[in-house]
């Protein structure tokens, strides 16, 4: 009985600590990694709460997909920050800049 209690307290404390770290840490990459581990521990908490469906969903979605989503977004943002101005793909890139001039012509 007390062992379970100890486990509960430990789990909740770890969850809270992870949440605090991931929100307070200065390195955003570290925060994302912490978020993934937070999601995995949450899955454990759902199992403890007798909610296996939620646990499965959390493990697969929360940690397995949200994490990569954050990582790829982070990578993309870093790439954007490095380049002064991106010159690939998006078709309306130049239009944005030219829009103002274009409009004056049409009046």
């Amino acid at each position: 009985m007390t062992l379970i209690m100890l486990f509960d307290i430990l789990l909740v404390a770890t969850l809270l600590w992870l949440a605090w770290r991931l929100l307070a840490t200065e390195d955003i990459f570290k925060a994302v990694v912490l978020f993934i581990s937070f999601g995995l521990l949450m899955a454990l908490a759902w199992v403890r709460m007798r909610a296996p469906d939620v646990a499965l969903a959390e493990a697969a979605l929360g940690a397995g997909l949200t994490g990569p989503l954050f990582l790829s977004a982070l990578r993309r943002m870093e790439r954007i920050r490095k380049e002064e101005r991106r010159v690939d793909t998006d078709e309306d890139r130049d239009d944005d800049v030219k829009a103002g001039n274009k409009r004056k012509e049409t009046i």
Partner: protein
Amino acid sequence: MMLEASSLIVCPVIVPLTAGLLCFLSRRTAFFASLSACLANLVGVCLLLGRSLSGPASYHVGGWQAPLGITLRIDGPSLLMLLMTAVTGLGITLYARGYFSFRIFFPKRIARHERQERFFWPLWMLLLAALNALFLSADIFNWYVTLEMVSVSAAALAALSGKPASQIAAFRYLLVSLLGSLSYLLGVVFVYKVHGVLDLNMLRACAGGGEGMHLALALMSVGLMLKTALFPMHFWLPPAHANALAPVSAILSGLVVKGSFYILFRLWFDVFPTCVSPAALNLVGILGAGAILWGSVQAIRQQRLKLLVAYSTVSQLGYLFIAFPLAYLQNDGLWSAVIFMALAHSCAKSAMFMASGTIFLHFGHDRINDLAGTRKCLPVTAFAYAIAGVNLMGLPPSGGFIAKWLLLSSSLASSRWWWGIVVMVGSLLSSVYVFRVVSRLFVVPEDLPVRQCLPRSPLLEWPALVLALIALLLGLVAPYPLAVLDAGRISLMLSGGGGP
């Protein structure tokens, strides 16, 4: 194989939903799918309107009764909101067609316009379905799902324009909507824990609930007020609405904010009236008054047409909230004033944003000071703007007048005249910002340079005028919507309703 007659009630959800999926599948038929969905939706709502004067109707989705299943319910307020959405939605659909067809005048930006049009239709149709689902639902968790659906589609629509300012505004809009939804969801969790049900009818029957219920209602209300942009929490609205594409601005200002307001209204007056304290009502009233004054003053100060209209939305939403302290307890008629105000504002504000969008398209800017003589190029649009303005000011024949009249008379009748003063001052201020624009639109100065007008597009101009006229005429046919509301209110007293 036959459809049950009561199935009509789900038509406003199913039809746009199907159309939205089809729009996503195939671009070519998108407009026609949307237009037919809007027409079918309007017809369906009108049929519902004809039937519902006899009383309210409940519909048990999946055939499951209340504690287990989800109930849809139709009564006075929900019916009028559905009607509002259907009418405004049809106008916006037509306008959007005109708006996107106008791209031929911007040959260099065709790829971009095509992308916008292509994603506009599915997003808009799904948003329409979500709003209709929201108005029909009688289940607090289902409301959460519809709210999320509305936020996601609205944020995506707000970002559609692709301009830097709109991206930032849309991001903030999405975060704010999420925060509002989460606060609402936490409230739902508390309600479910206290009462063990999610259905509105059953919740209405559960009296009291003590402190937990007060907190739950507070959490839900704050979340919804954030989404409705009540005064101190309005910061996200003007940039998001002003930087979006014109049809999107019309959708956001005319319809989306009404969704969360409707839930709030339902919760306070219909489901948990016993949990609402007079202090809370007065607080909301004060915030509403603040919204009216602050929004109007800000609107007067703006240099850009679309920002002016967006701030005017902030101020007009204030009227909806100022009715809260007045509507409570003593005066049943005010119930209808609120819904009436929402109705008139929806049509007028959509018309105003459409007109502003047309002006922007034609001149390439919306600096108010440079709009002199717009009447010459865009007579219909200028006229539409003026009529919509009449509505916002609350001049006599308009729907806005009826609503403000109801507010004013009730504040005098209950000798709480200060609310009446706020309404008067608000009208005065709104006439300042309306006239500021209208005078520019209509007065053609002598030395105006000859301006070459772009060819006019009827779809770009007439929907705005028709919507503005509808808002205007709403005042003349006021007894009818009020009768619908009355029928609805009687139904509310009955509560429950039949099932399979």
